[in-house]
């Protein structure tokens, strides 16, 4: 049994998969790269949108879609 099904990609180990970001004001959480909503970072879940994003390092606070 995998820790979480569907997540077997390289660079996504058991530890990374067990830590998530708890968002307060969103000033220090990466919108795309941190795992703060859902099971995977948004850059993986919405890779197509991520490719289009102008600022890939945007914070949660600064990113209003």
């Amino acid at each position, binding site marked *: *049994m995998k820790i979480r099904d569907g997540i077997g990609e390289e660079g996504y180990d058991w530890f990374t998969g067990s830590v998530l*970001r*708890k968002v*307060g*004001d*969103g000033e*220090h*959480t990466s919108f795309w790269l941190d795992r703060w909503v859902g099971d995977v970072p948004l850059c993986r879940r919405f890779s197509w949108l991520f490719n289009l994003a102008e600022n890939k390092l945007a914070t949660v606070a600064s990113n209003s879609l």
Partner: protein
Amino acid sequence: MLAECRAIISNIFLQPYVSDSWQWHPDHVGGYSVRSGYAILTSQDHQLLDDAQSLIWHPQVPSKVSILTWRLLRDRLPTKINLHDRGILPVTDISCVGGCGHIETANHLFILCDFFGDIWQHVRSWLGFSGVDHQNIGAHFIHFTNYSVA
């Protein structure tokens, strides 16, 4: 896709003056503990490695061979693609050292490469067996070590 993404984040409300923080998913309340990390690791299934384990760490196998095999089966050998992933080699320098033009992964280097992969046929004929190779290193390892008991 955009709508789906919007829907997900529309349920999240930022809290001013509250700092973002890390959270240990298996235990939100108590936070990280060695116990919970241990529980995760021991609940994982490494079936193939378990089968291979007693073969890798066999007392008659020299330790340098055991360690090489262990690293190979975990894909921790410094192949060019692994060195690239760790930021050591540029993407322009990841093709196989054998000069065949393919990307140098462990699987390629040990099995698929026309140059190096040939060795298994030679070893087989030396042992007096015939057969074909697995495309996967773990399966190949189990398969090949079975020759020693056959």
